């Protein structure tokens, strides 16, 4: 974790808020993490935990009418992103930092061909002639293994399947050799066989291009099979951070443990015929983010809760080397059975 090379992306105490009729929503409430060059970092959590808002904050895509980055710093290649002008951000987006989203159809322009859309990005950022940009586009389609790339360049998004569209998005995102690729639920809308293809493709391209990936997902299975390091978020805060092996071997936050016990598993050990074990539920609901959370955000649903958890927020500290967690009772959690 403490690699010699400085991280390409450094997020510190990020707070992002939205104004709603019910009050100010603290969607992200003091999140910090580093992303090393060429690394795959998974950010995992349930809906409303702030994982997508974290991604949008890094890209400065929070709609200014309703939301803002209220505090914190985002440093990328030595530059502070929170104070950059919109013009400077535009020259970074799709160039040094790229993104892919869950539903490619909503991110692709339906009236432009695939080739035009990829080449446009290349021309804007790399300032090459159109012809060279189109060549680059074809090269990228080959790279993401879209067959018959030359013909596909002239096709429109609706002519492609969901998996192909996501490949096109990846081609576009990688067309200018970004340092960082932010992928927000990139495979959630896809069928399982297609999801497997896209995840494999992303990892293979990462090896080839050296692009670091922030993979945002609700799916622990996707994280386990792709990420190197994982951040678990809950109610806008970071609950736990560890290498993927350590996290799944010995999760230390009661919330992470709860999540892992709640998911049905496809790899379950041969269950006796007909018997079905109960999944362990996490009782209760996530806290309302419009009211300030006193103490630990998970306290109301936690089996290890003490008086202190309800009044004082636990600091985020390293409990084991490279394995950090925000929990007052981490020693008790650690000693308890998985």
């Amino acid at each position, binding site marked *: 974790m403490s690699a010699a090379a400085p991280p390409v992306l450094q997020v510190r105490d990020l707070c992002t808020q939205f104004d709603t009729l019910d009050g100010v929503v603290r969607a992200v409430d003091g999140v910090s993490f580093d992303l090393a060059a060429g690394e795959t970092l998974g950010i995992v959590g349930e809906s409303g935990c702030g994982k997508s808002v974290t991604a949008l904050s890094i890209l400065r895509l929070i709609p200014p009418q309703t939301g803002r980055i209220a505090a914190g710093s985002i440093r990328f290649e030595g530059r502070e992103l929170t104070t950059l002008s919109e013009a400077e951000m535009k020259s970074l987006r799709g160039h040094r930092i790229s993104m892919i989203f869950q539903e490619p159809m909503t991110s692709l322009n339906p009236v432009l061909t695939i080739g035009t859309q990829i080449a446009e990005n290349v021309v804007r950022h790399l300032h090459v002639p159109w012809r060279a940009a189109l060549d680059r586009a074809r090269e990228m389609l080959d790279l993401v293994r879209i067959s018959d790339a030359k013909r596909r360049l002239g096709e429109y998004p609706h002519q492609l399947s969901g998996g192909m569209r996501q490949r096109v998005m990846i081609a576009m995102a990688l067309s200018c050799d970004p340092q960082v690729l932010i992928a927000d639920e990139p495979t959630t809308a896809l069928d399982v066989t297609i999801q*497997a293809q896209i995840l494999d493709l992303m990892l293979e391209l990462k090896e080839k291009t050296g692009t670091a990936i922030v993979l945002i997902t609700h799916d622990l299975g996707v994280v386990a099979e792709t990420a190197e390091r994982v951040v678990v978020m809950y109610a806008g805060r970071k609950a736990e951070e560890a290498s993927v092996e350590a996290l799944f071997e010995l999760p230390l936050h009661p919330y992470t443990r709860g999540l892992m016990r709640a998911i049905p598993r496809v790899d379950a050990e041969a269950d006796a015929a007909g018997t079905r074990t109960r999944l362990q539920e996490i009782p209760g609901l996530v806290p309302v983010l419009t009211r300030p959370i006193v103490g630990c955000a998970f306290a109301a649903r936690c089996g290890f809760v003490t008086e202190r958890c309800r009044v004082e927020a636990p600091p985020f500290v390293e409990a084991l080397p490279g394995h950090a967690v925000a929990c007052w009772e981490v020693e008790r959690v650690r000693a308890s059975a998985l």
Partner: protein
Amino acid sequence: MSDAPVLEVQGLVKHFPIHGGLLQRQVGAVKAVDGVSFAIARGETLGLVGESGCGKSTIGKTVLKLIEPSGGKILLGGEDVTSLKPGAMWPHRRRIQTIFQDPYSSMNPRLSAGTIVGEPLDNFAIARGAEKDRQVARLFERVGLRPDAMRKYAHEFSGGQRQRLGIAKALSVNPDLIVADEPVSALDVSVQAQVLNLLIDLQEEYGLAYLFISHDLAVMRHISHRIAVMYLGRIVELTDKRTLFARPLHPYTEALLSSATAPDPKRRRLRKRIVQGDVPSPANPPPGCHFHTRCPYAIAECRVTSPPLIEVAAGHHVACLRRPVGGDPEPLSIP
């Protein structure tokens, strides 16, 4: 109670016409369901799993008679209901209920939750007035909602609570079978666990049967007794879940299982071959075995002959030319 299966379908077919040209004449058909047969016993969960466009939801809608089948038979408790008109179908509707992926879209926003859940009691003249209120309150408690929530409106509930409302409504008429179409797909994992547990508890308590439709293999493995794997309108493999996960015989099942992600980083390296390509369009499926275009084990005959679903071992049905009756259950070789 008769011994007939709660639901049996025989050779079920559902084609949707495709219209085209200036005169909007029928130019083809999407063969959404193309000759599917299965039976569900009392208290059993049959899972229907497959990727989008495989026809699993169409089967659900057809057995509910929300859409009319193009061919085949539907038997509810041994009675043929295939060609019953809506009026004649009415008494049978009590026996088969449904829960959806998004219960919110099926709830009238202007009615209180208690009214929504109590509607079937009115419709089937089961209870009225104070007795109805008592029954609805009992249903609320049974699915883990507070009876005082009866006065609230659908938008005041969370996703998981709405799914509980949907379950309470389905339960209200005491059905034999519930068709559950992706009931937990829209829910977060911690809430998903609550709903899955509730469904299993209710099954054990009331002897309910489920036709459980999902794309999620892990959820399937958890809730089903038997699983039917579908590909482009056909069942390609049908067996008990233990056998399916331990010894899948159809190449598509194998591909699905090795594509599924599991929360275990050690499994990464164990990942087998991933099937390549996209699912072909159900409007124009490949001839022969529908899977041959993506199947690494396909032989020449697979391109022309459509394999029937046959019982290759006790209770294990497979539709694959390379998996004959009594054949070797070992991995196939690539030709």
